[in-house]
């Protein structure tokens, strides 16, 4: 197997290109790979299509940093804080840049990524019926269910095939095989649909550990392009069994990003002035340590023996 372990900066540099459609976390509010969001900003990637069901404040940061031309998502903001100020500034007055928004619901995004993952030409969905999103997102196509009598309306959702999916996992081996537990959101669909997959691993483990439990593998290692070892790379979002959520950090971001100048100061403090995530962790210091989950609530044993 090919060793895919590289530094995060190298993975972002090599595998995320200007104009790419990028999924940064697909589990909604947990396991958001903020370390990758920051690195994308540091490297000044441009004109990205930010694809996500929710991804908490990650999309707002990218927009404020001027990396985004297009948002394909169901919800952009700051989940515990409220509205996304950068999202508002960009959508309301083109600051720092105009963005185009392709509105989705969670389910339509799920089906778009499922279509991308499974090579379906489109998926007919009912839950968009009656919503003005059918007009605001020109990719949706109203149609009639040909099996229905009397005819019933449906909305056809075309596939999404992101150029890159960045997925944070609690543990991975150097070859791209990884374990995931807790809610998955759209992480499986996003990883299977993506052209390239970057795994952010909280811990790098021996291949035997991953192979001991193929049922925890959300997407296979052979679909993974690069593995990066980034402890707490999801901060301030939570990761079950590893890191509690740093809600105060989200709130602070929310307050400081209310004005553009405040956001730029925040960005400088937490992203631009820091060379990498190691420095970010050092700046967090004891605050990060306090978020570490130290308790133990182990899953009941599972036996894969064959004989």
């Amino acid at each position, binding site marked *: 197997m090919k060793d895919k372990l590289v530094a995060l900066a190298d993975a972002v540099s090599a595998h995320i290109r200007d104009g790419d459609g990028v999924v940064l976390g697909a*589990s*909604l*509010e*947990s396991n958001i790979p903020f370390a990758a969001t920051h690195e994308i900003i540091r490297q000044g990637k441009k004109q990205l299509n930010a694809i996500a*069901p*929710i991804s908490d404040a990650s999309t707002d940061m990218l927009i404020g940093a001027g990396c985004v031309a297009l948002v394909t*998502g*169901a*919800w*952009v*903001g700051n*989940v*515990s804080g409220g*509205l*996304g100020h950068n*999202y*508002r500034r960009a*959508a*309301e007055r083109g600051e720092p840049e105009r963005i185009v*928004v392709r*509105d*989705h*619901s*969670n*389910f*339509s995004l*799920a*089906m778009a990524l*499922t279509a991308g993952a499974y090579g379906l030409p489109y998926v007919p*969905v*009912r*839950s*968009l*019926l*009656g*919503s*003005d*999103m059918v007009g*605001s997102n020109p990719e949706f196509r109203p149609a009639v269910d040909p099996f229905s009598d009397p005819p*019933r*309306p449906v909305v056809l959702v075309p596939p999404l095939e992101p150029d890159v999916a960045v997925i944070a996992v609690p543990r991975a081996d150097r070859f791209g095989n990884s374990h995931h*537990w*807790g*809610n*998955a*959101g*759209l*992480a*499986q*669909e996003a990883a299977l649909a993506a052209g390239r997959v970057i795994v952010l691993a909280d811990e790098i483990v021996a291949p035997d550990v991953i192979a001991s439990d193929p049922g925890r593998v959300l997407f296979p290692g052979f679909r993974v392009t690069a593995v990066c070892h980034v402890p707490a790379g999801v901060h301030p*979002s*939570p*990761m*079950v*069994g590893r890191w*509690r*959520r740093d*809600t105060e950090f*989200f709130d602070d971001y929310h307050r400081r990003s209310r004005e553009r100048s405040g956001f730029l100061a925040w960005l400088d403090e937490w992203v631009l002035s820091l060379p990498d995530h190691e420095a970010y962790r050092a700046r967090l210091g004891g605050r990060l340590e306090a978020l570490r989950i130290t308790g133990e*609530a182990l899953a009941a044993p599972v036996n894969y023996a064959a004989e």
Partner: protein
Amino acid sequence: MDYSAQEMMIVAAAREIADGEVVFVGMRLPLTAFGVARATHAPNAVGLFECGLARYQPADGVLHTMGDPPNQLGAAWATGLAQVMGLLHAGRVDAGFIGGAEIDRFGNINTSYIGDRANPRVKLPGSGGAADIAAMSKRLVAIINHEKRRLVERVGFVTSPGYLSGGRARADAGLAGGPAAVITDRCILRPRGAENELHLATIHRGHTEAEVRENTGWALKTAPDLAETPPPSEAELAALRRLDRDGFWR
């Protein structure tokens, strides 16, 4: 008995959940309502979370998002968004709770754009799962603060469909279900008649019809059987306060 306006809302929301029902509970107020319902009249209700979780008992510990570790620990099901929302899309979810920036007299909800879509005055966060829940739950319950700018004649953008232009419009659009209740801090509105227009159904204690009307952005009609919203019972309030250890809702 002394209770806050939000406690009244939570208890009213809890009463919308029948025993054994499968419900999208979202976060904060409806999530607490789910806990109250489980602890009182609906011990077999099941809560769904769009991120890919289902729970019997509400999480032990404060949640800021549905993906927080306490919501994962001891869950009934940890899976993907598609599996959980697929249950909804297949018509297997009894009720869903959503909030919104604006709601109109037919229960349509806007969480997308205030003002012109191309140049919005306010860009709101978007649907999340709200459109799906509004379209596909057997019953929708909306929770909103009762302000004139929020309860409007007609929303500028329908993120989450209610009865659309009223009457059979929702059915004609291909949807069953629809809003069953709009719970505000002043009252409960419910659809009535062939038009499916929201009517004032019950008023929370301490509020008046005139005040409700004054704070509603359309000529609100009153149900003929208008009543007071039953205030929280001792059991309901006790259940709520056992969940709300830090007094967030008081």
